[in-house]
């Protein structure tokens, strides 16, 4: 029997692999999505190896060399240098780190929390749990997101952490609402009733029966949201309430450098290109994921 079992376990792995292959096939049909993935992987690689691949790692933070300030793009500084003589390209690559960290932290908190709250509220629709969760989410949705973020950052000390806190606070309700609406319709599916009749625990029903049916929309939304996190994070930094100089944050850099427009345009161009590349890669990948799940 055990040999029998290992054969089946192998078959199971094969089927999983086959499913993954099929998913990749659907994703790869969308050439733009593949381009997005390539950009994304490149950016992640560059950001994680920033110390080794950038020409002047020390330029990332506090560094002054007035001899090289305001240099337009040239072979030594492909995106030019800024008012302190720092290499813009190096700073943008380090800037990716902050952007990706922001996405990771915000979505890492927002997606699980929003999903669990949405599952609970949807499954217990009409009960106290539903009212409390939805009431809370409505309060947060009612406040304009950027205003809330600005309020938090101006009351508390303006730094990266508080910027993240602000974004997280205003973001979870959107996941809760999406999952809530899906759950409250799926909870009356016969397979959920069958699971109840079998005596499955509520946690099993929520996470093993319902959640797998929502992974598609969650992943798609998270990817598309990642680009919004970057834009909003950059906006908060841009108005001076996020990361503070000399942190190489893309938004902070943008707000510092834009004062030197139009004469020293390359300084603004660097962080701008960085933001556009990241946002574009997430959006393109999001479309690809949508294709993957739509084709199922």
């Amino acid at each position, binding site marked *: *029997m*055990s040999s029998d*079992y290992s054969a*089946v376990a192998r*078959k*199971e792995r094969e*089927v999983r692999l086959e499913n993954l292959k099929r998913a990749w096939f659907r994703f790869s049909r969308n050439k733009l999505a593949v381009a997005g993935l390539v950009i994304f992987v490149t950016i992640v690689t560059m950001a994680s190896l920033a110390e080794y691949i950038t020409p002047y790692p020390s330029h990332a933070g506090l560094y002054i060399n007035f001899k090289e300030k305001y240099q337009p793009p040239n072979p030594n500084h492909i995106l030019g240098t800024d008012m302190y003589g720092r290499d813009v390209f190096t700073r943008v690559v380090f800037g990716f780190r902050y952007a990706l960290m922001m996405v990771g932290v915000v979505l890492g908190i927002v997606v699980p929390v929003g999903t669990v709250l949405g599952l609970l509220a949807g499954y217990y629709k009409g009960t106290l749990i539903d009212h409390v969760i939805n009431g809370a989410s409505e309060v947060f949705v009612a406040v304009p997101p950027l205003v809330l973020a600005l309020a938090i950052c101006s009351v508390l000390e303006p730094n990266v952490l508080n910027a993240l806190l602000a974004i997280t606070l205003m973001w979870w309700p959107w996941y809760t609402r999406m999952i809530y609406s899906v759950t409250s319709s799926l909870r009356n*599916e*016969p*397979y959920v*009733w*069958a*699971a*109840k*009749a*079998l*005596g*499955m625990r509520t946690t*099993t029903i929520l996470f*093993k*029966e319902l959640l*797998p*049916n929502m992974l598609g929309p969650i992943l798609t939304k998270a990817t598309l949201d990642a680009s919004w996190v970057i834009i909003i994070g950059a906006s908060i930094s841009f108005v001076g309430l996020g990361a503070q100089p000399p942190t190489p944050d893309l938004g902070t850099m943008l707000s510092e450098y834009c004062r030197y427009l139009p004469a020293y345009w390359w300084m603004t161009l660097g962080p701008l290109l960085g933001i556009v590349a990241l946002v574009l890669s997430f959006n393109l990948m999001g479309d690809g994921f949508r294709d993957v799940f739509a084709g199922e």
Partner: protein
Amino acid sequence: MMVMQDDDDSSRGSEALLTVRNLKKYFRTSKGLVRAVDGVTFSMSTGETLALVGESGSGKTTTAHVIMGFYTPTEGLVMYKGINIGIPIEKRPLSLKREIQIVFQDPATSLNPKKTVKDILETAVKVYGEGVKLERFKTILELMSYVGLSEEHLFKRPTEIGGGEKQLVALARALAVNPAFIILDEPTSALDVSAQSKVLRTLLKIQRDRGVSYLLITHDLGVVRNIASRVIIMYLGKICEEASTDEFFGRPTHPYTQMLLSSIPAMTEEDERILPTRIESRGEIPSAINPPSGCRFHTRCPYAMEVCRKEEPPAFNVGGSSHIVNCWLHSSNTRV
């Protein structure tokens, strides 16, 4: 519910598996109170297949769902093996849930579309103890071969297999917890005829081997003929007629029953002969919000009399082994 207490003991009978006494289930809606089930009484003994037959709005499915604990009764008593089970499923002990299982009409929606057959069965097996992975796997394979599914279905998702096979998976899942009583909610009406007979045969086999009792909810009298031992006909939340299957097809008595049987398009002359004197179907099924007074069928009944409009007919025994008809036409017989 208080009213029921006095005749509680007499109803317990020999060894009733399930007793439903004066069950009522009303739903409040924006349009008014829907009287889905309005005073239904019957009992079932171990090992039998009781068919609850009716059209939409008859309350057959609601009755089944009250027994399952998906709804709680508005009034009346539901007893399983002498225990009152008129409680929501969430409050039932695991041992009770395990005894009563349900198979739904459409296996496309009663099986989780994202899971493979193996995962579906595995979560069911796991409910009553994680156990060893290997043992679990053995149980899954046994269940599958028992209901006639081959190993190649193991890693397929419900969307990748045929309707009949899906329903067999749903059956295997119910069997995973070794129930004593299974509610079959229109188990074959979403299936093609060729798949239908496979599922029906498997149902008969399960009953033969395991002594499982079935409550069959259906509108298909062909299915009733083939697997039920007793039949109850419901109309607008009330029982019209109750009889053993042979007695029922031999002597269908209630005018509604006769209309129902006459409405079935017979396939051969042989089938045509079994149908009663034709009562042509007429009228529409009234709404359960404002059900007709007296006998609820009087608006469509060709034999309706004055008394039918005013008074609700009690149950009359028209002979045979407890052949009961709720119809004033048979008031010369003894009341039950």
